[in-house]
């Protein structure tokens, strides 16, 4: 168990900056996921924690002890950090017991103590009695569990997981997500989990750190991340948020009054959000067809049948380029059909204004509204 602090950490290869001035605290016993698109630096960050990559600036400390700094680098073998690799990296020339007990052998533990610890670790991952099995006789899920057991047996102070479910099929992945959760609760180990799959990240983590371009975009518990993204990137990447230009008019009862496509709506947002142009993040579920035609005037531009519902794309009359998606059950409207939209919920991004794409001024918005009425 350890708490991990990163202060101003930077890594560059040649001119390319991979990790840029990153500061992050991982609490003792926390399950943190690093989420981001490929190439965002999340795997590099994980490998820096493991000690496979050095830092060009800043420092990494475990429980206050310096691990990485430009002039100081504790090699991976001295960090007592466990890692579960995407490829599992099980050694085919050793049996399951040999794999799980390797770290104990390195530490010179006696055979009896070793056997006990191996059995215990295999028990924890649900593979009791698998000691003598060959690696190539195991299924993907079993290999995953052996990799986890190998990591457990060394009693690491920090467990790093590098997309460990990427090679499993969808069903097994769901099972393993629950397993990881359970395993984390049982062991209390500090875990850092890298993934590009947001569903996995949301399901597992105490906190999710979203990365982009070597920087930390936001770090927050999953619900907060989804409900209140702080940047455009997080809004788009997590839950496919749709960003629309709005005009903030003022705060009221803990909500913000905003102009949106020529209508007034009340959305969530920081109370200190200044009036003026801003961006709002709308989820597909935040939108609905307005009963009685009283709402934002729009036109159907596309549809895609997805089984439980149909995803309908609509273009508001006020801003035809800013198409929105929403789900509907039942027979979809025809393309080109006029309709009205209502907005139930939404989040105004703090400080993420784009002047050039700012909300249409109220005057023109009103015109849009007039067009609907007319």
């Amino acid at each position, binding site marked *: 168990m350890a708490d991990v602090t990163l202060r101003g950490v930077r890594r560059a290869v040649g001119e390319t900056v991979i990790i840029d001035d990153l500061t992050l605290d991982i609490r003792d016993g926390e399950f943190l996921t690093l989420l981001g698109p490929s190439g965002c630096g999340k795997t590099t960050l994980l490998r820096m924690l493991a000690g496979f990559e050095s830092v060009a600036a800043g420092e990494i400390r475990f429980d206050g002890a310096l691990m990485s700094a430009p002039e100081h680098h504790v090699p991976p073998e001295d960090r007592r950090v466990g890692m579960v690799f995407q490829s599992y*990296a099980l050694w085919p020339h050793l049996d399951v017991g040999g794999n799980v007990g390797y770290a104990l052998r390195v530490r010179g533990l006696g055979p009896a103590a070793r056997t006990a610890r191996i059995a215990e670790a295999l028990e924890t991952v649900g593979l009791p009695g698998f000691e003598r099995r060959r690696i190539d006789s195991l299924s993907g899920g079993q290999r995953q569990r052996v990799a986890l057991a190998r990591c457990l047996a060394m009693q690491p102070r920090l467990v790093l997981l590098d997309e460990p479910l990427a090679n499993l099929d969808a069903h097994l992945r769901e099972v393993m997500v629950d397993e990881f959760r359970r395993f984390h609760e049982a062991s209390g180990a500090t875990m850092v989990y890298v993934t590009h799959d947001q569903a996995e990240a949301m399901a597992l983590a105490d906190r999710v750190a979203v990365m982009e371009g070597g920087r930390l975009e936001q770090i927050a518990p999953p619900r907060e991340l989804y409900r209140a993204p702080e940047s455009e990137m997080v809004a788009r990447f997590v839950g496919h948020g749709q960003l629309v230009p709005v005009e903030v008019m003022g705060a009221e009862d803990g909500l913000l009054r905003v102009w949106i496509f020529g209508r007034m709506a009340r959305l969530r947002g920081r109370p200190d959000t200044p009036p003026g142009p801003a961006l709002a993040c709308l989820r597909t579920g935040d939108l609905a067809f307005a009963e009685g035609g009283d709402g934002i005037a729009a036109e159907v531009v596309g549809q895609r049948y997805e089984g439980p519902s149909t995803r309908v794309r609509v273009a508001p009359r006020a801003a035809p380029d800013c198409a929105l998606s929403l789900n509907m059950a039942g027979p979809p409207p025809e393309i080109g059909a006029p309709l009205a939209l209502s907005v139930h919920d939404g989040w105004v991004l703090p400080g993420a204004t784009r002047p050039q794409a700012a909300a249409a001024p109220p005057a023109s918005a009103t015109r849009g509204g007039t067009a609907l009425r007319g």
Partner: protein
Amino acid sequence: MAQAAATWVRRGRIGAEGWLLAALGLYVLGLCVWPLLRLLATVFADGVPEGISFIGSVWASDAARTATYNTIEASLWATLLSVLLGGAVACALALTDLRFKAVLAFLLILPLLIPPQISALAWLSMIGPQSPLWMLPGGEALQPRGNPLLGRAGVILVMGIEHAPMVFLAMRAALRALPADLIDAARAGGSRPMGAVGGVVVPLMLPALAAGGLLAFVSAIGNFGVPALLGIPGRYPVLSTLIYQRLSGFGPTALAEVSALALILAVIALAGITAQMLLLRRYAVTSDSIAGAHRGFALGRWFWPASAGIWALMLLIAVLPLMALAGAALVPSVGVRLRLETLTFGNLAYVVTGLGSAQRAFTNSLLLAGSAAALTMAVSVPLAWLIVSRRSRLARALNAAADAPYVLPGIVLSIAMILTFLPPLPGLGISLYNTFWILLLAYLARFLALGLRLVVTALAQLDRAAEEAAQMAGAGPLFRLRTVVLPMMAPAVGAGALLVFLGAFSELTVSALLWSRGNETLGVVIFSLYDEGNSTAAAAVSVWVLIVVLVLSFAISLLARRLPRGVLPWQT
């Protein structure tokens, strides 16, 4: 406290790795680089202009000029033959629905596995006046008086066939990397199979064909076994045989002259090597297609004629010469026809029980090949690990240096070894020349690249995470090497050892100048027996060598299933 200890341990480990690198560096530099530098130093001892004018004076002799001309001429023609044969068979196997392709491929690769002097002997037996071929009905009229293979034509023919597998392998690798959809796209565009081959396959294959051809050319430049057995008696001298004859005729007094000749030979070879490297770098096959290799056009009504043709060709170049060689070993003496009543196993028994030089050669070659294989692999594994896993820049430079004695003609290496080890060793006061040890050192230098390349390729394909996982478990570099890297590399190490053994077991080119009485090797004994006119005994020793070579090749192909792709030079 713990942190201080960790830092201390880390320093200790870097030290261990540093010592390892230093020891390996000493080994590679001492064996592979130093002798070649000695060769340069000998020629340019009095300065560069003097060295050049000395090479000029050696070059001025008719013998040197004729040999150089012959070397280039024979190599060019042999290369043309290799390209035609290897390229055509590779295309036939990759692009048609011929059957038993694996067997055909093995037969074409066979000449590469057989030592050149044995190939030469086999071809002599097949075409010579005593060949069983002429006993076939109607063969009597074709029976030659002398042996038509002695001389230029024979050197070109046998070298051409011997090196055809290099072109074949280069072509086959490229054809396999050629995605089927490129050919399918040509067909969809309306071209017939031959049109697609001419318009798409051939242009895309030209770099591979040229690279394979250059490899064959460099091998032909350095070949000694074939011109020694066919060219010397046929009065067709090439550079390698000229160097051999000068040095064995005049002894160490000729060292200065043969050093200059060796340098000329090395320069010709280097030109070929450089051209090949440039070509490979420029035309490295890259493809963005995920389609597999083409499954082959249906030959239709041409299936049977084509099958008959290719099997007859393979029989002629791979099977019949070896049968003729066996036949030559089974007659009581030269000139006796092989019949049921003349057939005897006496020669085969004699060379292993009664012939002193051959007996010694068996022992020596087994010892030399065995120790060369073991030592080479013992050096290759840690060196490959430093190159691949630790990405040591210095180790990578050593990798390149280890290539030099392997790609340069063997005769150049043996001159370099003589120059280095003829003078008494500093501090010990003894010379290794005329001993068993100079042979071993030369083999170690010659075959390091063979073992090292294989281990490097195999290691590069290992999942790096396998070692990183061991690192996470707290294992230091040497512990990881022993418990994770080495066990996972075991099949590749085994294959590498067999490959080095195979090369060293019947080595002739390097040994021809380094052997001494009591330290004969099998390659040398075959050559000497033949030279003395005792072809039956030469054939008998060859048959024994062939048996070992074939058994070892079989052992390697058994290992091949456990090796990563592309590790073995001829892997299917």
